[in-house]
């Protein structure tokens, strides 16, 4: 224990086990929504939701451990909202690329990303793109995922005459979104940690009470099998051989840059 405390520099950082564990747990509660949102988003690309759930939890844990143990920062990572939307809606649904090939594209992009990180080319590339466009990309991705949310929640619907229109409030399931949105908004304004997660819990309870969501027979089980997605990226790497797919790889790189890169 003493060695661990020394490794994580508890004395210098004026921190304690209690503070660290509470901090880590609070962060988890605040971002746990991604474990359920990601299978839903990647499900649009026909990926197996159970496998995506397990893969997302494992990849997040891995990145958190590297960040905590190697970089020693109290910063947690998980599959990013926005990039997953790009993966599912732009690449798979929009361009008609299979999720297997798209995953291979992410793998290739991650190798390039790793090299760029190691060779410190990051700043050069980041500096080339004007700040205004970086902010526009972040904001645009925000608009895009909000649009997806509004559509999935039933608040916005397609319309032949006006392209899009207000959704129907007589659809019962839309009320799950409305309740969830109001609760989450209120908790966000109050700056309650884990507001998004709590909002999801309350919306789910509302759905169960009203019978819109079936109550599960059990709450705990073994982790869903990774078999549908594990290693698929490697087997499809050779498919990254067209100009179109290289552009996909490049865009993965660019989008990832904007969402997660620090600007020193």
């Amino acid at each position, binding site marked *: 224990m003493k060695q661990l405390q020394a490794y994580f520099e508890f004395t210098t950082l004026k921190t304690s086990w209690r503070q660290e564990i509470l901090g880590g747990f609070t962060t988890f509660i605040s971002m746990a929504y991604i474990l359920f949102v990601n299978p839903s988003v990647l499900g649009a690309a026909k990926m197996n939701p159970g496998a995506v759930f397990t893969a997302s*939890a*494992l990849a997040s844990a891995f990145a958190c451990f590297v960040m905590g143990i190697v970089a020693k920062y109290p910063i947690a990572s998980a599959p990013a909202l926005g990039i997953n939307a790009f993966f599912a809606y732009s690449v798979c649904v929009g361009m008609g690329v299979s999720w297997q090939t798209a995953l291979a594209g992410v793998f290739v992009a991650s190798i390039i990303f790793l090299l760029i990180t190691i060779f410190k080319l990051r700043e050069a590339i980041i500096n080339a793109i004007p700040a205004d466009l970086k902010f526009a990309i972040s904001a645009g991705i925000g608009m895009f995922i909000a649009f997806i949310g509004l559509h999935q929640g039933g608040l916005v619907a397609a319309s032949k005459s006006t392209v899009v229109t207000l959704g129907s409030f007589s659809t019962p399931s839309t009320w799950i979104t409305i309740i969830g949105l109001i609760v989450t908004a209120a908790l966000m304004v109050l700056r309650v940690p884990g507001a998004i997660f709590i909002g999801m819990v309350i919306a789910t309870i509302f759905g169960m009470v009203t019978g819109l969501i079936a109550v599960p027979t059990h709450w705990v089980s073994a982790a869903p099998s990774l078999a549908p997605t594990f290693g698929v990226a490697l087997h499809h790497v050779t498919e990254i051989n067209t100009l179109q797919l290289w552009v996909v790889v490049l865009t993965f790189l660019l989008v990832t840059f904007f969402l997660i890169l620090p600007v020193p």
Partner: protein
Amino acid sequence: MGGGVNLFISDVFFDTAGTLVGLAQQAGYIKNNQMPRVGKALLADSTGMMVGSLLGTSPVGAYVESSAGIAVGGRSGFAAVTTGICFLLALFFSPLLAVVTSQVTAPALIIVGVLMAQNLRKIAWEKLEIAIPAFLVVVGMPLTYSIADGMSLGFIMYPITMLFAKRGKEVHPLMYGLFFVFIGFIWILNY
């Protein structure tokens, strides 16, 4: 992006582009505009992205939500380790997937969208050579239902408006390169 750090210090919360720097600042790590061990921090995300692609998930990135943990006292890497352990424990709660429907996750998408849209105020709207390409990126993404298409529209327009504003020299050569890359991208999509 000289002075980028200062830019982000003023907005620690919910800044996607500067997530790592913003969080490190909040935790008190940034001294003299330098983020120590930045390479190692980046390694976490790039290796996470690689591991994620092999397991079967989309790219991993640092979460601004870490600011909640820092706010309640998390300072060292052990806070991130704790979060990682929580993710492993979460593996056993997969039956919840069936009850968390897309109507339940929709508010998360909308609210995170709001947080990301806060970046809008940092755009120099008064300069049309900036405002036009930036606007095309912002509205292009939802209206074309594609992040890449939205980016293309803005990245193609940017060198054009900058040249006509006689600010062509301020445009980085890489941006002129991307101008052709994105024209090619749109061409391929329509081919």
